[in-house]
């Protein structure tokens, strides 16, 4: 589904250039739950942002279902982010002046759905992440775990093929982290969604099928923990 070939991302140029990614190649199958691990500065967040079309690679190829997405113009990338990709940020990245429901249904409205339909989709997504009854609360009225679940609801409401999560439990305690990971696991197992998650917590890998590890911008290990095709059956 996703093919990455010799992906590079340099910051700056010449001798002082920082090589955040230095020739990373791998493939991800549909329905995989993948963790990207590595120490700070290893390039895992950079890789995730490039995969989610939030950043550009300096060199290399990146295709989703055979489409060379890295070279798409911004308008198409924007449409791709809206319709095909869900992204869960480490710091939730919710719009503070929007309620939980509004944070979610703004995307459905962007897709052209009516306000009523968008609202229903948002309620369904929020219910899925156990936020029933908290639809009208603004982010400031929610706990960290609840905010992250709103962010997940926003990402899953449009039923994207691929979901990216950048250290989604970094600001959460163990209890909330487990809740979030359970949501991901359920989405992956029940709906066959491809999930790519950056984490540095070893215990998170209990939830995933495969772990790739980066060091100094290079892929140093690729470890399979289960068979994705088993889950989609």
């Amino acid at each position, binding site marked *: 589904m996703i093919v990455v070939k010799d992906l590079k991302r340099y910051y700056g140029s010449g001798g002082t250039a920082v090589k955040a990614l230095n020739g990373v190649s791998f493939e991800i199958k549909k329905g995989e739950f993948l963790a990207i691990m590595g120490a700070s500065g290893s390039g895992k967040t950079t890789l995730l*942002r490039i995969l989610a079309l939030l950043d550009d690679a300096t060199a290399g190829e990146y295709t989703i279902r055979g489409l060379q997405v890295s070279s798409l113009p911004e308008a198409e990338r924007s449409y791709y982010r*809206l319709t095909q990709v869900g992204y869960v*940020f480490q710091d939730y990245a*919710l719009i503070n*002046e929007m309620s939980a429901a509004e944070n979610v249904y*703004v995307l459905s*409205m962007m897709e052209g759905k009516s306000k009523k339909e968008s609202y229903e989709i948002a309620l369904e997504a929020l219910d899925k992440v156990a936020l029933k009854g908290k639809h009208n609360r603004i982010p400031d009225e929610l706990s960290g775990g609840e905010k992250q679940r709103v962010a997940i609801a926003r990402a899953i409401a449009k039923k994207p093929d691929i979901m990216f999560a950048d250290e989604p439990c970094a600001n959460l305690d163990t209890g909330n982290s487990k809740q979030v990971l359970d949501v991901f696991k359920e989405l992956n197992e029940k709906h066959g969604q491809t999930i790519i998650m950056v984490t540095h917590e070893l215990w998170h890998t209990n939830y995933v099928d495969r772990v790739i590890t980066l060091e100094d911008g290079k892929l140093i290990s690729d470890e399979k923990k289960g068979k994705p095709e088993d889950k989609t059956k």
Partner: protein
Amino acid sequence: MINDIRVGSLIAYCSVKRGNKKTLIFIIFVLSLIFMNLVFLPSMIGGMMVLFTGYMQDYPFGDVVIEPSGDNTYINDADSVLQKVRAVEGVRAATKRLDVGASIEHKQNIVGVAVTGLLPTEEYEISRYPYIISEGDFLGDLSRDEIIIGAAIAGTSPVFGEIYDDLGEVRPGSLVDVTYSNGVKKTYKVKGIMEGTFELVDLNALVHYKEIEDVYGLEGSKATSVVVRVGKQGTEEQVQDKIREAGVNEQVFTWTDKSETLIKQAMQSMGAIDVMSKFVSLIVGAALILIIIYINILNRKKEIGILKAIGITPRSIVLSYAFLSMFYVSLGILAGLVLYFSLMLYFHANPATFYETMEIRPVIDPMLLIQSIVTMLTLSVIAGILPAWSVSKESILKAIWGR
């Protein structure tokens, strides 16, 4: 595009609904002052225009004025013109006048003046001259060798006393020597002092029409102007046309025609101030609106990055700020209108006083208000779109994380 508008509206709506109310009130207050700045001074200047043009109607020109055609100095048969004019429907009163140049001397003080020869009893229906006599009496039909002198020349004006040369306290009963432009010198007894608190009046002198006729040896009822008052204000142009149709071949002007050539010339410097003030107000207004919206947008730069990251189109984001900006400015205009009309009410009850006696009441000009509202709204759209467009063009990473 429809989706962009819907999403833009939703973002703007949420921002207003849950944004900081104190900031909103402050922004609206500043915008209302910008609007006031655009409309208040022009309204005051408009009030001055009305005041001055009122003076022009009440003294030199009436509602319609007939002047000699071509290079002629006089209307040759003014009585015939008067007869035709008085027969015109809509004319309330008409009279003839003779304006000449002269100098007046009293106790070795000499002042240059315009002397108007008029028919005193007819002036009661035409002008306010008979009603502004501050000392002594107005002329009568039998007034000969008598003169009415403006307060600024007489030296009794508390308003213009320190501005113009005068005759040094001339009072009713004083004798003055008048030397006309043709060299004829004549002594007059001052019958009255007129005080109109308007330079064109208070620097003038009035004598009986017959005096000028005699001094200049005019025959056959000549006049330098025939002044007409209409029965109903606003019908000046219709009366002007009817006078022409009645066979009057002299030049026929309405008071607005004369105001355009005279008052507007006099008001040119005021007009320049008006234009400059509007221009500066617009520039300051545009800059302020831009700064307010730009600061607002900079505070929401991360939000813009997030919206882009989740797939909201830059067009929706830009539109949301245009809507937001229009909303702020609309409320600012509303608050500005309340402030403006409150000030209008105040100044109508307590007019600004000019030269101690001239009361200036601001004029509400609907066109000016419409122009200012349209200008502010246009500025608001530009002010909302420009910074939002500039931020929405930044990379997502830079907008969210500043790199």
